[in-house]
């Protein structure tokens, strides 16, 4: 695939909700140093991820494994001296990846849960019985109609069915 011009990918990111601050990064490495995932595995380094994005490596970023390894702990965003919203930028990158059909299986499951019952975790009959045993009130159902209207308005449902080539 042809080399993307760096500025275009950068502009794509900065024009998205969550991605606005990526260009502030001056590669100091604070995020990588404070990241619990980076401390455990070499597979992930948020500083390097941002660098790849700013250099326009669209495919590597959006089709790769790295963006899915953030644990959303927000340590990076908290300590960044340039106030780059690192965790939010990664959300934006994930949003972009999913829009292009790169969605890991687990996220498909989350989405199905949401679109199905309005909850991430469906409740089982066993649990309902247990709740009653302990005197907990029965679980009120979510307003699934309202939720589906929201999902339709944002195009969430269309995002979900665009899955081509799930990532590793």
């Amino acid at each position: 695939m042809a080399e993307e011009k760096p500025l275009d990918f950068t502009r794509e990111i900065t024009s998205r909700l969550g991605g606005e601050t990526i260009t502030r990064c001056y590669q100091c490495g604070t995020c990588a140093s404070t990241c619990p995932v980076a401390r455990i595995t070499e597979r992930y380094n948020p500083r390097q991820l941002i660098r790849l994005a700013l250099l326009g490596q669209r495919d590597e970023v959006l089709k790769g494994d790295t963006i899915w390894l953030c644990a959303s702990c927000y340590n990076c965003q908290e300590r960044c001296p340039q106030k780059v919203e690192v965790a939010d930028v990664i959300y934006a990158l994930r949003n972009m990846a999913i829009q292009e059909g790169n969605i890991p299986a687990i996220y498909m499951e989350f989405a199905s849960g949401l679109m199905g019952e309005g909850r991430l975790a469906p409740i089982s009959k066993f649990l309902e019985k247990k709740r009653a045993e302990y005197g907990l009130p029965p679980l009120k159902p979510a307003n699934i109609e309202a939720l589906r209207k929201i999902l339709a308005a944002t195009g969430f449902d269309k995002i979900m069915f665009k899955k081509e080539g799930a990532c590793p």
Partner: protein
Amino acid sequence: MEEVKVGVFLSDCGGQVAKILDFEALTSFVKAVPGVVLVARGSEFWRGQGLQTIVEAVKAGRINRVVVAETVPKISEVAIAKALEEAGLNPHLMEVVDLKNHCAWPHKDAPKEATEKAKAMLLAAIEKVKLQEPIEKAEFPAVKSVLVIGGGVAGMQAAEDLADMGFQVYLIEKEPFLGGLAARAVRFFPTDDCAICIQSPASLAAVTQTSRKCVYRSGLSEITNLNILTNAKVVRVEGGPGNFKVTVERKPRYVDEKKCVACDLCASVCPVEVPDEYNAKLSKRKAIYMNKPLVYPPAYVIDAKVCKFHECAKCVEVCPTKAINLDQKPEHVTLNVGSIIVATGFREYDPSVIKEYHYGEYPDVITHLELARMLDAFGPTGGMPIRPSDGRRAKRIVFVQCVGSRDRRWNPYCSSICCMISLKHAAMIKEAFPDADVTICYIDIRTTGREHEYYYERAREMGVKFVKGRPSEILHDPATNTLIVEVEDELLRRLLELEADLVVLATAMVPSEDAKELAQILGIELDQDGFFKEYNAKLRPTETKRRGIFICGGAVFPKDVPTASLHAHSAAVKAAKFLMNGKITKALKVATVHQDYCGNCQFCPVTCPYGAITLEPKGDGHFAAKVSELLCEGCGVCVGTCPVGAIELRHLKASQISAQIKALLSVNGASKPLVLAFSCSECGNAAVDSSGMAMMSYPASVRVLRVPCTGVIQVQHILEAFKAGAQGVMVVGCKPDGCHYEVGSQKAKQKVEMAKMLLQAYGIEPERLEMFNLVFIEGDKFAEAAKAMTEKVEKLGPLQLA
């Protein structure tokens, strides 16, 4: 008023301008204007024979007003004015018109129309000058004495310069001893000279007797005219430039400087011991103390916060020269100075707010100033870097750069000198202790000055390690009492946990804690980071917007010692220039208030960018505005603000504005609708000039009325222009953040907005009025704007005035 006799001198620029403009027609036109008694045409009138012609006419009494069409307007104005003055005519009774750049060149494709415009331009100049009254010069006293606030490197340099030049100098310092921050630094980069040495430049009076460099040997305190007051702060400033009355408060020293012989007997018997802040609390001092090894003044001082005074008084008993007076009170000293120089320097940012680094919590996390005291052979550890927690020598030392600098959460700027300081300290440590393990964690290494890169080379040669990465956290392992620095080595792409005995934070450099208060007392500005703001760093460095008050050194922005020296000398020269004649002579091109009209609305004192307007009681219980002739810069922003027209510029009265508006629009002959452009005399006019100089073309129906600053424009001027025949009005001023009078073009913008609303209310299209902010290099934009405005107004059709 005497009879007005106008002489008009038309220069045709060696015939060039005459090729486009019909000079015959111009001459006849001008001759017919009432009040014109003499018209001459020539090649040049601002020098040589041409200038002589003007001078002779003046001397002969034939003319008492002068209009010159000349081609190098700025230079010619000055030359002609000078000649007129020498000939006995008030130099403000003249006007120069640039027929070349404002008419011939830009309209050379339409010579007939250009000529008509030239007529209008000349008419406007003639009408203006007819209404001009003489403007006198005034002299204001300039006391040949200077107050220097701050006794650090910059302050001492500036003070010494001025004292040598013969000015009376008061050098005040809020601490009990001179030296400031730099005195604690041990050595200065890039030469590794000892800190004490660099503090004194060559002294004129003593050059044969003292060392050229060393304050220890230069006898700074013995320079005549140099009065040093320590323990002193400015509390009030009254008066004005050339004649300030400054009230200085001196905290009591309790020790008479003239009697103290620094024998140390007092300290030896003093029962009170406290941590020594000067030595980063690594050692103790007594309540009565003197910083070592060498200070000015060489006299002890009592710390009033901890001394027991008369409950103890042991020091008084033992002092051999009876120098101690425990009853000394603070005193107020009033100084009369002509000029003030601010040299209050900077200080280290307190990094305790950056909680992830645990400064203030872990004793082995320190700053550069604290390390400097350790590395000083005269210091509390005799030159050895130690761990404050257990006193042992620190072997593994990690420096962290950009602590609180380049950080949007704390101080967004780069503090400029910390990389060099770390390299300096790292090398000093490695030199004295080759087995030390020194690592510098950095984002960038900035060694931009002369000879600075060699520091970086040397550090690498000495085995200092560099990790490109900003530590996210400093941890402490209680089992081993070791610090752990968590950082990513980006170049290795490896996460490190560096073990350290001592962590040195290169913390940011921020303004002195008194900067804000001092800025308010002096009436000068701070920039967004809290440092004192220069008027224009490029062309007027070390000046502020208040004449007579100058700023230099670290107080303006963190800088190294060589640069601080340079800066100090600059401020000294400016102060000297300002005061050297013993008086300030100023042409009174200022605003004046018609006190009877003034309604005391208080708008003008607030808007004046120079604080030149005050409210004075009129005696009948009312107040009226009064303009300080010394402080007024003649911009006219006050004029633009006054709702009743009670304030007027002597060099541009309301009647002169009206006359010019009428004149510029009276001679039409243009094929296009007339557009009047009010242009300021700074950037705005520069843009008009440059469009002409580059021969860019725009319609001759665009006529330019020059004002000092667009801030002088009122809504009524705009309406007047429309009434007088303009189909469109342009306002051309400086960029909003670059107005040469601070706020003028922003104020103009507000008037333009108001005028647009009024136009709409009258049923006139508001697009007929536009404001443009241009600079000199945007001549093309002016030409485009003029063309676009004309086209727009053409499309809108003729103006329907009810």
